[in-house]
């Protein structure tokens, strides 16, 4: 088990209120304690990966952030508000595997879902349509807008889901395993698109791909019951062994990729 690290707001080289603030948060499913005393902050413009073994609590952490689960102890603040209020400013990108491949919607229909609000009744208006087209364009998908979502490649679907999140004017993007079902080239196009969105956006990504993590973000949230936030550079082999409880091999892709600062280099 990894110790919980308390990263006090005042200790960070950041100004202003944190985008995400966990204060002594514990959560359990029945008697099964999944998150224990999580205490960390994430600030505007940060790009962070959540890593940890299966069943370690990564998805639970994400659901707590989104207000889909309520902590047993402690409190969670999103943009200084409760998770349920603050989540209107969050763009959530779930795993693709959760979608019915036969559900008849176009890429544009999916992007339009990002414009939905509690009181959205009747048909979409011109502004909704323009915003959805704009977000698809930003993700390089303007030609695929009228294509059925199911007919798109894994990488394109992921980009549509990100467009759906962006259309909601998201200030915080939460991505659950974005590279799980896409090839390496698509993964890198995806990361390039995300980096092009600008430094204003805070991005939290859940990932199993430690090679991707090590070259994509400067900071990681390690989750295995307890939650520990530290720079990616400290994610050494010994640390990974401690986190996962066994050896984990990092597979490096032998081609050009993006480093943590958005530049390019070769393996």
């Amino acid at each position: 088990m990894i110790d919980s690290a308390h990263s006090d707001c005042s200790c960070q080289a950041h100004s202003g209120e944190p985008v995400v603030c966990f204060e002594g948060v514990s959560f359990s499913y029945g008697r099964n304690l999944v998150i224990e005393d999580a205490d960390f902050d994430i600030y505007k413009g940060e790009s962070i990966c959540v890593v940890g073994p299966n069943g370690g609590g990564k998805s639970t952490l994400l659901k707590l952030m989104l207000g889909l689960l309520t902590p047993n102890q402690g409190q969670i603040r999103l943009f200084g508000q409760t998770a349920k209020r603050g989540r209107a400013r969050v763009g959530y990108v779930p795993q693709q595997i959760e979608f019915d491949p036969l559900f008849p919607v176009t890429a544009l229909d999916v992007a339009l879902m990002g414009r939905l609000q509690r009181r959205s009744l009747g048909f979409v208006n011109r502004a909704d349509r323009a915003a959805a087209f704009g977000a698809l364009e930003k993700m390089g998908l303007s030609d695929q807008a009228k294509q059925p979502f199911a007919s798109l490649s894994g990488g394109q679907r992921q980009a549509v889901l990100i467009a759906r999140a962006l259309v909601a004017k998201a200030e915080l993007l939460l991505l659950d395993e974005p590279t799980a079902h896409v090839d390496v080239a698509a993964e890198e196009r995806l990361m390039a698109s995300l980096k092009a969105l600008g430094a204003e956006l805070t991005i939290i990504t859940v990932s199993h791909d430690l090679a991707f993590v090590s070259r994509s973000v400067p900071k990681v949230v390690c989750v295995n019951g307890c939650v520990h936030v530290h720079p990616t550079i400290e994610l050494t082999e010994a640390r990974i062994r401690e986190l996962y409880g066994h050896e984990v091999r990092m597979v490096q892709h032998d081609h050009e990729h993006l480093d943590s600062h958005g530049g390019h280099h070769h393996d």
Partner: protein
Amino acid sequence: MTMSISIVMEDIIMTDFFQALSDPDLGFLRNALLLGLIGSIPLGAVGTFVVARRISYLAAAIAHSVLGGIGAVLYAREVLGWTWLHPLLGALLAALLSAGVIAWVSLRSKQREDAVIGAIWVTGMAIGLLFIARTPGYVDPMAYLFGDILLVTRSDIWIAGGVGAFIVAMLLLWHRQIIAVCFDSEFASIRGVHADGIYILLLILTALTVVTLVSLVGIVLVIALLTLPPAIASLRARSLGQMLLASVVLTAGFAFFGLGLSFSLDFPTGPSIILLAAIVYLLANAGHRLLGR
């Protein structure tokens, strides 16, 4: 050659049917056709969401449970003298109760959803058959299972039209939220949509469609027209809007041509419409496989 024979046959059959429709003595045929055309709108619209959300079995359970409510009302009318009770009210209560239990099970309970749906299906039918057995006089349960679209009256058509208009109005208002919840309920919740409430709304609209049409055309025809046309439409539709429009047109087409065939060939109407829809469904699937997407 075969094609020209079928065109000639179709010509003779449909000419007969068209003549019969203008016959003043065959008003029942016009009523049946009118109900088929009006009913195709709620059936095609709600059926699209039922098929897209993969809850056809759930709609079938609601349809069968309706028999419990109808049987209880028939018993109360005859034995308790509650003649003010209309079988439609019993059907509505049974359908809403079933939809409520299914919604609770799928959203809150840890029970197996498919097993509970099966239990509601058979329990509703058993209750209905028991009440009908204890009701004095002869009531044929087959009339409720298969119905008879040829016995439809003008007031039935008004009721079906009214309920259909209400269902369409609700879908026009809430369709964006229903689509979002059916596609990804978690994301819809994050956007502030009451996902559970929207799912319950979809079940209520399904129950209303089923109730309105079950007492007129029978349980089996309602299930067939709720599922087969949208299933056919889904083979080529790119969006839910396309699927919905195609489903309504197909449902109206099956009602029209099924009625025409049953009249000309002297077949029972309900089974004729169902078989026509089923044959087109099989052919559409085969064509889709052969020609590819």
